[in-house]
């Protein structure tokens, strides 16, 4: 082993902070070359590279220069020596003069092949780093594993290794160079250097596609429970829609499909995860997130890539390391829920006032008549009870008025806040351990998260364990095993918003004496009271929300495991083979338990009891007394569906060949080719309900008279009902399986580091698209080109520009729409139909004989640039996505058996601009560093073709797809004002239409709505994200702003039919105050005896006056961090950092007049402002 010492002279000297002299003056005789060079360095600030083996530093020289520049000085020093030099930046490399050709021929025997690995300072391989032989044109680039090979190199030449974002390094060539570590060029400007497509890592320099990357540095200091929250606003063109729990659903570059899934594909460490959900990922384990936006980037994912792909790379150890431990913890406390935001009921005074008005004017849907059979299942409100009691002569007017006055003054909000709500607290603890040798590298992490939600009774505990081990078995075989386990136990017993909305504002949860207050629900209290007490199994048939919440325990447990393994085999110098396997399993158990105190149980038992209201006698009680344990009921396609267990199993196998080679001096190619096989199977089961259940005694009782069927119909307490059954008599099953087979390949060729062309092709087949092999396979492809302009001669010396790259790509991505098939499909019942006593089936799809994959062709033009010594950097992308063969609904003549069928006939285009701009400054003469990044995106979305005329006005209002309009277009109706107490609309031909007229909304070819009725798009086309970092010494401050512009939304408004008797329990929403105030944009109060108020709600919500711009800017997050360097040193840990954060501080500006956040209108449970305190420790 020969060692060549590489000396960086700079390391030998103390760098003086003084400014360097512009001119160099030396006058010395017979001094060593070394001392002269030192002197020059001192005066100029230039560093040197040279190999000690080649150059004798102690040879004596004479030098005399006065006010010389660096070139002159160096030339003078080297005069007469067989040495030459090169200045690059502040670096001077000195080497032997090139031997003459003849001499060189003699030295042939010294030529060697040089190989090595380039890594960053942490040992992470750098793919695409360039290695240049000084003084020649020979050069190469590292492959995806950071490895390079240069053939036929003179042994004594110097290699220059450079990589964007790192300091350039020069070393002497030798046969085997183990590892070349590059130092980052600037600590706070961590340039993204390698991008991952999930199939391969590509150096950013050679990547032709539109990749956006969020790296660890950005994700650090952002304590989140769900990774998606940390990504919001960071990637231009990735629009986020926040969920109640603060997680975010993304849409990349607009909607490309009408009916298929529009979520991007989520890939973790090279594998798509079947949940396609961020919640399965421990955010602390994430090293980087790469968003693949255009065809060249994403088309390697083929038929599932049209919505873009989000590639997540988790942390893993890259180099030898001693045991390293990172620990972090944070606690997040949120504001209390703003009941004015989540509940939309009117205040008690308005509520009572409107109910009184409705009563006086006889606005009823179905009047209360006091008939037992009709009215017992129609609950009145407390106010209506008084009104009707007076009408039926049970109380006098004075008593009624006193009662109403009293109700007007009751406000249940504080009780709701105290008894049902709490401050949400989430705590997360995370530890990760890394250790490794040459042969084995381990990364392991453990996370525990505990959440107590804002609604009492809702909480979860979550564990996530991650283990990742890389083994180098031999020089040519490496092996990897990774395991991720997650366990989550969740309770959702708390009151739901819907339940709280069911309370009248004057209904209290607890009376002053501590007993449960009267909450009216499904029944008329007075009529229920006519039943003699004690004859039903439960004498108490009343409802109280607090009692309900306390008496139930709704649980789900989720156990998920993800196992990934793979090996890499080096077949030859340039060829490697990868084989990977992923297995996933996720099981969820749902157990909903209601004890005897709940209305749910008491009501079901009482209801399923025979009763004769004439004789006031009860008969058989079909449901045994006691608690009920049942599956969770979900609403699927509008129908309730029970689930006890759901079990998801998936596997994926991938085999891939990788080929990397450099030819001659300037050519390098990289190829991958592979195949993939995957299967995703979901099974669900709903167990029978357990009746008469006492968990403490482990007792249960089967309904003694059976569950009822068409052969054995039961009757409930109202009598005479046919075919009533007890729910949950059957075990029901569900099953679904998706399978994919894919072949893919990708190739890229780079010339002279300046020009790169790439191409990829992929074909997928799945088991949805059956029969015709021609249609089953979807050849999807892309081509791309990149021009590294900065490397051209004419820009070499253009100082302000540090980097300039142009990208141009074109290609096709696919999407899957699963609801159709080539042939007709059935939906067969899983248990006998209650009406026919048999299994029944319906046609679920009429068949689309020409079904094929949806395809989207994307053209992308991009520029990446760094300016002013990398102080400013950014990229600009222009794209045009043309979707063709998108599944659209086609109107058919109904003699075909259906009036519409989905065919691949629609087209959607998305055009857009995405701009990312970043800057890094040190404010002169201060310790203040400021960095910022701004993302802006504009998306223009249009449905270009769709043969399906909207049939009815209502379709347009409901957001039907309209040719020539965006996917989420909003139409409105023009209000004409009230005429004789009847609100009027402007209908076809400008005619007035009364709100009582059902015709307008179902007006055929409802296309009477025209441009004037088109208000805009519900998805704002302009989005903005702005992140700011200020660092002052050990303090750092990060502030994030988000904005959306150019969209519209509808303001919620008064629901005229909700205040009516006979339409369920009356609930009056707060917008009644607009009607009381005489708003001119919505109807006023109706004439007495108006019976068609429920028709008004078909029109009112869509009136044009309610539509407003949804533009807004919000401050999303403020984080303050402090690094305790001294303390760390004192207690002998590497680093300690504490931070405080607040999220969702609120809107800064909004366009609408109501002050709403348009994404969180009243009645929605928007993410609350939270305060987080956290700690990071590194050992």
């Amino acid at each position: 082993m020969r060692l060549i010492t590489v000396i960086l002279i700079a390391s030998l000297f103390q760098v003086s902070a003084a400014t360097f002299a512009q001119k160099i003056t030396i006058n010395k005789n017979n001094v060593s070359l070394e001392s002269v060079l030192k002197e020059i360095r001192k005066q100029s600030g230039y560093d040197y590279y040279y190999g000690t083996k080649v150059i004798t530093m102690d040879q004596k020289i004479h030098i005399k220069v006065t006010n010389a520049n660096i070139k002159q000085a160096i030339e003078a020093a080297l005069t007469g020596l067989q040495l030459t030099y090169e200045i690059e930046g502040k670096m001077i490399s000195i080497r032997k003069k090139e031997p003459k050709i003849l001499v060189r021929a003699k030295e042939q025997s010294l030529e060697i092949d040089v190989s090595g690995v380039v890594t960053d300072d942490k040992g992470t391989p750098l793919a695409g780093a360039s290695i240049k032989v000084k003084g020649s044109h020979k050069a190469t680039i590292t492959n995806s594993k950071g490895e390079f090979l240069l053939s036929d190199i003179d042994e004594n030449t110097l290699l220059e290794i450079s990589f964007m974002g790192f300091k350039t390094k020069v070393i002497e060539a030798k046969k085997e160079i183990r590892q070349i570590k590059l130092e980052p060029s600037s600590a706070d400007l961590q340039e993204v250097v390698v991008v991952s497509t999930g199939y391969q890592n590509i150096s950013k320099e050679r990547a032709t596609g539109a990749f956006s990357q969020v790296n660890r540095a950005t994700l650090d200091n952002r304590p989140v429970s769900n990774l998606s929250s940390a990504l919001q606003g960071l990637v231009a063109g990735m629009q986020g829609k926040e969920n109640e729990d603060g997680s975010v659903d993304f849409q990349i570059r607009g909607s490309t499909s009408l009916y298929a899934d529009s979520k991007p594909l989520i890939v973790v460490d090279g594998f798509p995860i079947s949940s396609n959900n961020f919640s399965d990922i421990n955010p602390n384990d994430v090293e980087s997130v790469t968003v693949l936006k255009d065809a060249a980037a994403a088309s390697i994912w083929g038929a599932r890539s049209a919505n873009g792909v989000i590639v997540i790379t988790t942390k893993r150890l890259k180099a030898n390391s001693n045991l390293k431990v990172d620990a972090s913890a944070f606690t997040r406390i949120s504001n209390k829920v703003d009941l004015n935001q989540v509940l939309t009921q009117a205040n008690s005074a308005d509520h009572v006032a409107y109910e009184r008005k409705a009563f006086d004017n006889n606005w009823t849907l179905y009047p209360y008549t006091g008939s037992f059979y009709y009215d017992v299942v129609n609950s009145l409100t407390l106010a209506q009870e008084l009104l009707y009691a007076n009408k039926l002569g049970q109380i006098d007017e004075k008593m009624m008025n006193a009662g109403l006055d009293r109700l007007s003054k009751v406000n249940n909000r504080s009780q709701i806040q105290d008894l049902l709500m709490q401050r949400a607290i989430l705590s997360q603890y995370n530890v990760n351990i890394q250790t490794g040798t040459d042969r084995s590298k381990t990364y392991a992490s453990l996370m525990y998260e505990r959440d107590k939600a804002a609604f009492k009774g809702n909480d979860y505990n979550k564990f996530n364990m991650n283990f990742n081990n890389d083994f180098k078995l031999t020089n040519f075989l490496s092996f990897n095993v990774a395991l991720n386990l997650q366990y989550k136990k969740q309770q959702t017993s708390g009151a739901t918003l819907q339940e709280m909305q069911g309370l009248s504002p004057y209904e209290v949860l607890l009376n002053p004496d501590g007993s449960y207050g009267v909450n009216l629900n499904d029944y008329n209290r007075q009529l229920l009271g006519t039943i003699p007490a004690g004859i039903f199994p439960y004498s108490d048939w009343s409802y109280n929300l607090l009692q309900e919440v306390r008496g139930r325990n709704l649980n789900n447990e989720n156990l998920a495991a993800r196992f990934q393994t793979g090996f890499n085999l080096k077949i030859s110098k340039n060829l490697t083979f990868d084989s990977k396997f992923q297995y996933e399993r996720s099981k969820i158990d749902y157990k909903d338990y209601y004890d005897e105190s709940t209305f749910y149980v008491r009501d079901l038992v009482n209801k399923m009891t025979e009763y004769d209201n004439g004789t006031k006698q009860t008969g058989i009680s079909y449901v045994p007394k006691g608690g009920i344990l049942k599956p969770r009921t979900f609403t699927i396609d509008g129908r309730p569906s029970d689930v006890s267990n759901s079990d998801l199993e998936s596997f994926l196998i991938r085999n891939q060949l990788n080929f990397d080679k450099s030819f001659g001096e300037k050519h390098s190619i990289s190829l991958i080719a592979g195949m993939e096989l995957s299967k995703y199977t979901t099974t669900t089961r709903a167990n029978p309900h357990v009746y008469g259940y006492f968990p403490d005694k482990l007792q249960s009782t089967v309904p003694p008279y059976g569950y009822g069927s068409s052969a054995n119909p039961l009757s409930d307490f109202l009598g005479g009902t046919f075919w009533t059954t007890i729910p949950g008599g059957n075990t029901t099953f569900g099953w679904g399986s998706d399978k994919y087979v894919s072949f893919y390949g990708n190739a890229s060729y780079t010339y002279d580091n300046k020009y790169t062309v790439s191409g990829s092709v992929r074909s997928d087949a799945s088991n949805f698209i059956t029969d015709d092999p021609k249609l089953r396979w979807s050849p999807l492809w892309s081509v791309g080109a990149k021009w590294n302009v900065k490397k051209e001669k004419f820009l070499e010396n253009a100082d302000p520009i540090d980097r300039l790259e142009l990208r141009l790509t074109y290609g096709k991505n696919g999407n899957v729409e699963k609801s159709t098939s080539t042939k007709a499909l059935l939906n067969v019942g899983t248990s006998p139909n209650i009406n026919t006593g048999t299994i029944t089936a319906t046609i679920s799809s009429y068949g689309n004989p020409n079904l094929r994959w949806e395809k989207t062709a994307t053209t992308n033009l991009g520029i990446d640039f760094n300016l002013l010594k990398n102080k400013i950097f950014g990229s600009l992308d222009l794209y045009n996505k043309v979707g063709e063969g998108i599944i659209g609904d086609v109107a058919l003549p109904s003699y075909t058996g259906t009036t519409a069928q989905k065919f691949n006939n629609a087209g959607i285009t998305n055009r857009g601009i995405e701009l990312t701009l970043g800057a890094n400054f040190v404010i002169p003469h201060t310790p203040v560093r400021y960095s910022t990044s701004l993302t802006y995106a504009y998306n223009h979305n249009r449905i270009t073709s769709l043969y399906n005329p909207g049939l009815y006005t209502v379709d347009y209002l409901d957001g039907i797809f309209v040719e020539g309009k965006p996917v989420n277009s909003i139409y409105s109706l023009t209000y004409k004002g009230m005429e004789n107490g009847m609100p009027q609309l402007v209908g076809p031909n400008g005619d007035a239409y009364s709100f009582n007229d059902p015709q307008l909304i179902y007006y055929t070819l409802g296309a009477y709505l025209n441009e004037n009725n088109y208000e805009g798009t519900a998805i704002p086309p302009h989005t903005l994200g702005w992140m700011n970092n200020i660092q002052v010494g050990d303090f750092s401050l990060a502030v994030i702003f988000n904005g959306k512009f150019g969209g519209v939304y509808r303001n919620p408004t008064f629901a005229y039919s909700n205040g009516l008797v006979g339409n369920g329990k009356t609930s009056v929403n707060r917008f009644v105050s607009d009607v009381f105030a005489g708003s001119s944009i919505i109807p006023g109060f109706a004439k007495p005896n108006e019976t068609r108020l429920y028709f008004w709600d078909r029109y009112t919500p869509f009136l044009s006056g309610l539509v407003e711009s949804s533009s807004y800017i919000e401050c999303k997050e403020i984080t303050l961090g402090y690094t305790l360097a001294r303390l760390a040193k004192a207690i002998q840990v590497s680093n300690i950092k504490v931070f405080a954060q607040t999220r969702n501080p609120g809107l800064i500006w909004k366009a609408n007049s109501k002050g709403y956040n348009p994404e969180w209108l009243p009645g929605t449970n928007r993410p609350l402002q939270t305060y987080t305190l956290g700690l990071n420790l590194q050992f």
Partner: protein
Amino acid sequence: MKLLQYSFLIVGLIAMIGCKKYLSEEPSKQSSLQTVDQMEALINNAGTFAAEPNCTAAYSTDDCEITKELYSKNPSVFGADQLQYYVFGIEGVANQNPDQLWSGEYEKIFTANLILENIDKVKGDDAIRRRVKADAHFIRAYSNWVLVNYYCAPYSPENLGSLGLPLKKTVDFLESGKRATLKETYDFILSDVAEAQKTAPDDVDPLLPWRSSQKTISAFLSRFYLFTGDYDKSLAEANKALTTSSRSLVDYNSLAQGNSATYSVNNSTITLNYTVLNDWKSYNGSKYLYWQESYYTRYVTNPYQWFIPSAKLLALYDTQNDLRYKKFMIKNGGLRMSVSDPAAFRYTMFYDGQYLPEGLTVAEVLLNKAEALARKGDLTAMDPLNQLRKKRMTTGHYVPLTATAKEDAITKVLEERRREMPFSMRWYDIRRFSVNDYAPDNINVTRNFFKASLTGVDVNSPKTYTLDAKRYLVPINNLDINTSKGQLEQNAY
């Protein structure tokens, strides 16, 4: 190393070959058509096959009457589109919502075609296969019969060359939508019936009365031949159908009282009395599927939920003793869950006033038999008629009808027919009476109403409307004409 490379190649090849089989597993179970049980499950989706949303039956006959006063006081109860049926609109009917009768029947035909295309290819029990095949043929025959009797000219020798239906025999969306002739249409119906007869079981299954049987088919044929004027065949088929041992008349005296509803209107209390068939509870039930008199469960339904009997119809009943009047004509009944003002009637038999039997009941077969006999001049026509009346009149107040001559017999039979099956059979009868060889039964339908268009009613412009022969053909919806791209031809008006 070479060995390794080859082995990868081999593994890859095997994977490619196996992938066709790998991908042949379906994404969900029971979704593609593979067994006769699935086909049977389609037939057993009885609720869909039984319902026949039918505005023509509800509004276009002389069984319906919306008085000017009723309209003027309740304009919001009547939509402009249902009024177009009432005033015999042509464009007004063709231009509204998709016609649910037309589209609904063709949906049933599609299901039948889907079954017929696959039934011989799928696995399963042959007995079930044969029965399902009969069901599918019968469904297609019945739906085509309904359609041809609404949208095409009435059956008569002169009309046989006129426009019939688009005959859908496959599930192919591209199959022609061109209308066949009337003769071809009727031939197709008879050929389907003949196919159904080959494999149908003998009698109606009391638990599955929506399935076809030989008795069901005979009941249908007794109607079919009555409408084509072939009274001998009609009579023969009626007699065959009446040999059923599973179906029988229900004595309306035995219909129990249901839950009544009480309303207070203008300070007075009005109680609406219902039977167990049509009280509000029926709304949740499916009693209509198991009606003891049904050979085949088919029901005219009114999407607007109010069959409004005309004064002339009401006048036909013995208001004291006819239980059809007393139990089904609800005085003061208005739109569902309301009372009418001014007082009108609500005709309701099943399911909250929406379902009226249209398909093949014992009562109808008796009436078919009576009419065939009467038209042949046989006065024993009164026997089946009285057999029916006995079950319809209050106990102790039944008086047998007698006929003095053929004309008298025909009149009495037709009156009874109208009393027994108002709305659901009236449109069919008006059309057939207009083309048969007996002029006295022709019916003129006229209305005194207001000027009405699809966009509204002008209560200041009274107008009289008369149903003319051209309008006996219900206009085909323009949406279907448009989307057929020139294949489907509209009736000439």
